[in-house]
């Protein structure tokens, strides 16, 4: 389970800073998840269920990022997504050094093709709830000075409640809606709507403390990843200790249906001037444009979400093209997206 350094979240400035961190945190999960997703060869239908599961998680992370932006805008803050240093780099730590152990060791998130190890070694670690229902033996002991991601969001929510309606000074026209269910992405203008929005992030990520499903009846991320790792769906089971077990229909995995992308493409030199280098550069340029577009979307042009969507689809096509290109030279394996933001070279 991942901890972060406990933060004091009391003042409006604290809340705004924390929400900025939250945007960064939600953004940080998307490249690793999408990299794994795009590494799954769409022509191999055996892995379709796995792809659908990861995809649904990645889309919810996008939702969470949007929610965090809406809440920040609502309390008079300004999302700053396309600023050098804000978009995470890989391999690298999560924002706020989440996962840093009390002994100081960092949790480093790599970019890797899909594998069961990627799911258990990285994704389930990121998403592990405070108290995983199926595996839990006891509630994790409180660690002094540290908190979980859930506790972090809970602290933000509590602080908003304590600060009250007076902090909701943001321009309602900045609120972004659409593409998601209106009960998931909605205008945040009040304490109640802010707390409802934050609760969605928490539940979709971790589930509730008693149920692996969120309020929409969707399995929380950790359990979706666990389904993939176990190879079976999580289903109700009255004989299981917590009422569920991984004994549903199988979720098959065919390792041959994954493009052989190198781990951490940003660490692998590409032949200068090569076609694959050009493709990798273009991916970064398009990703940078996407962050530009999202920044515009959450800073006064909510209708630009449609434009950003076009860039997301372009990224997907480019990523899958890239992952089918052998790097060549002395490197074994295929290229992959690096997710490098650059203001100067951004181009859709």
């Amino acid at each position, binding site marked *: 389970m991942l901890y972060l350094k406990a933060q004091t979240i009391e003042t409006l400035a604290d809340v705004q800073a924390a929400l900025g961190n939250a945007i960064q945190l939600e953004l940080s999960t998307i490249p690793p998840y999408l990299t794994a997703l795009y590494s799954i060869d769409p022509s191999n*239908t055996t892995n*379709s269920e796995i792809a*659908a599961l990861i995809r649904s998680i990645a889309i919810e992370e996008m939702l969470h990022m949007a929610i965090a932006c809406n809440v920040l805008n609502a309390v008079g803050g300004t999302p700053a997504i396309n600023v050098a240093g804000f978009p995470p780099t890989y391999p690298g730590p999560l924002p706020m050094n989440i996962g840093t152990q009390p002994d100081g060791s960092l949790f480093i998130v790599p970019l890797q093709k899909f594998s069961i190890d990627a799911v258990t070694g990285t994704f389930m670690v990121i998403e592990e709830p405070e108290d995983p229902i199926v595996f839990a033996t006891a509630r994790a002991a409180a660690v002094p000075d540290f908190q979980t991601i859930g506790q972090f969001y*809970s602290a933000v929510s509590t602080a908003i409640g304590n600060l009250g309606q007076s902090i909701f000074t943001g321009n309602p026209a900045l609120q972004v809606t659409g593409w998601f*269910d209106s009960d998931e992405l909605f205008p945040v203008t009040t304490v*109640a709507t802010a707390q409802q929005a934050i609760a969605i992030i928490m539940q979709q990520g971790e589930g509730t403390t008693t149920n692996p499903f969120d309020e*929409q009846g969707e399995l929380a991320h950790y359990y979706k990843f666990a389904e993939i790792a176990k190879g079976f769906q999580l289903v109700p089971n009255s004989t299981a200790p917590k009422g569920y077990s991984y004994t549903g229909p199988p979720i098959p995995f065919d390792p041959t249906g994954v493009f052989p992308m190198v781990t951490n493409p940003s660490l692998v030199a590409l032949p200068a001037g090569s*076609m694959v280098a050009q493709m990798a550069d273009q991916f970064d340029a398009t990703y940078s444009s996407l962050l530009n577009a999202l920044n515009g979307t959450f800073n006064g042009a909510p209708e630009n979400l449609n434009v950003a969507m076009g860039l*997301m689809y372009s990224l997907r096509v480019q990523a899958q093209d890239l992952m089918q290109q052998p790097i060549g030279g002395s490197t074994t394996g295929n290229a992959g997206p690096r997710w490098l933001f650059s203001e100067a070279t951004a*181009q859709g």
Partner: protein
Amino acid sequence: MTYLNPIRLHFAGQFQADPSTVNNDIRHYDTSEFKAGWQQLQTSRADPNGWWNPDGSGSFRLVGCTVTSVAYLESDGTTPTTSTTDSIVGMQIMGANTRVAGKLVDLDPQQQMVSQIWGMLVRLTNGTTDLFSGPFAAAPFTDMWNRAQGAGSSGDIGASAVYQSVIGPVTWGDPGDSTLLKQLMAAAPEGYLSIKFNVDSYNMNIGTPGFTLGRCVGTIGPASPSEPQFFSLGRHLLPSYTFDPRNGPTPVGPMYFMPCTVQGSTLYADFGNALPTMTPGSDMAPIGTVQLGWLDANENFNQLATLADYTNAGWYEQTAGIQGFTIDPSTIQSNRLAVSVDGTTTLMENSGGIHVRADNFVYRVNANEAANVTVWGTLYGTPAAGIQISVAADATQLQGGAPYPHDPLTKNITAYDPAQPENIISFPQALTTGAGGQVTLTINTTNPNTPRVYIDGQVFGVRCLPAATATALGNPPTILSGQSTTAFGFNPWDFVSLLVWDEYDQPATWANVAPILAQYSVLYPVMDQLIDLTSETEVNQQAALLQLVFGLPITDPNSMPVTRDLSDAKRAVLLQYLGAQVAASPSPTVVGAAPHGKPVIMKRKVVGKPPQLSATPAAAAAAAASADDGVTTKDSKTLAMRNRLGNRTAGNK
């Protein structure tokens, strides 16, 4: 005013053109006979499959283009000068950084020689701030020729062509201390800029460095909204043509079409696409002494100036091939301009200094609608009333038909002729320019009624020529079909291409929508990565997204189809169908389906009203758990999960 004026910037770098090539063969539009292999890369010249880039995205980009030099007027306001030290030199000319790239789009599989760039944005940027940015009006390439002369120049890599259009209205940034930008802003008060770039050295060899890239060298200057967008009013120098049995009409001599303008006592000549290169992407080839001059009544060449330095390394990238020459304008006011190479006259203005051209020359129209083409006539570069124009159907520059020209494979599919039946389009055969040197050519249409069976509508060509030229050469000029061996006075590329769509009036059912989408599915394999357009389930699930992109204006880079070949009538039926799916959907779905074949795990509404959350998440959860809305929360979740499992089971079938 256009780019060919005293105030301009030159840029050089690369372009990327990434078209899908499965649609290169019209017979691939016959979805009933389509073979999976036609989506695969060609394995040899004898087996083109889906040609050289079947997975192309359609994107067109300016890549690594930087400002190499500028030209402006000295402080006296009249003396032109050039500089490589203006503060914008070294800045980038590039596309949008907040939306997807522009798209490169053929008009039709039987007219692939007017590929237009749609939805591109052009910016001048220092990497953090834009100095200007604006949309590029969709424009086709023209004036393609085999410019590279040396080894390795055969095929498209040796070819060069021109794009000219207008950017704007632009958003200006702070010009800072840039003399060029300040003059450009003053010269373009309405925010319209003229852009022209030459593309050559295009790499079509997949897997090799620079695949889909080529050289791009261009110029940006002010545009006058009252002038043509796609060519410069001015002096247009033409080569003579000969007929080559293998390559068709071929320019005589080493040079190609060259536009010039005269402003004050300066003649601006654009050699950018007029000179050959040694090899693809190289400096200009040393063809000899190139002189600019004028012709007297006996067509004797009178020298005005000599082109200096053109073979120097980097000359082309630095100048884009544009040179200003100080002249006495009265000398050439009513004499034909010409270019000689080592004493041989190689390029000349047309007889009488007449130039006739359609501004926009690519049209898509629905059945029974008209294309209104603005045609300009000039005499010695000045728009003139009373110029008589001949108009005629000209299919000679369209491609394909039976027998199919590239037909190494046995395909049991008929390749239908373009431009048939001829009477689908009608237009006046003679026009006369009015005041301002303009006249509107109205091309009326009727319903083509699927003459090519498996592809919508029909494509036509219409050529405008000065009446005297048509009398001398024929209209279309007989050399275009090999019926004469030499010709001077026209540009084979100057004709109007017109795609006329079929009438269509069918109910908005899947049965009617499916064939429309199926064609896009097979011809654009890149779509398969996003959605299976042959799957009713997937289309219905992603109806909201499809409704969005099929509803965008075709100027939008996200507009579907990328090919911009969907008639208004079919689009309306498709949108009606998608709208019905969206309306019938229990809730808007998030972006799309699983990669292939299986439905996305749909989000489901909680049964009953959503919980109203309390001050803390923990309290909220407690409140939700105790909510009395007729169905307990636990039950609702179980129901949702059952739905989900049921959905999965269905998906696994």
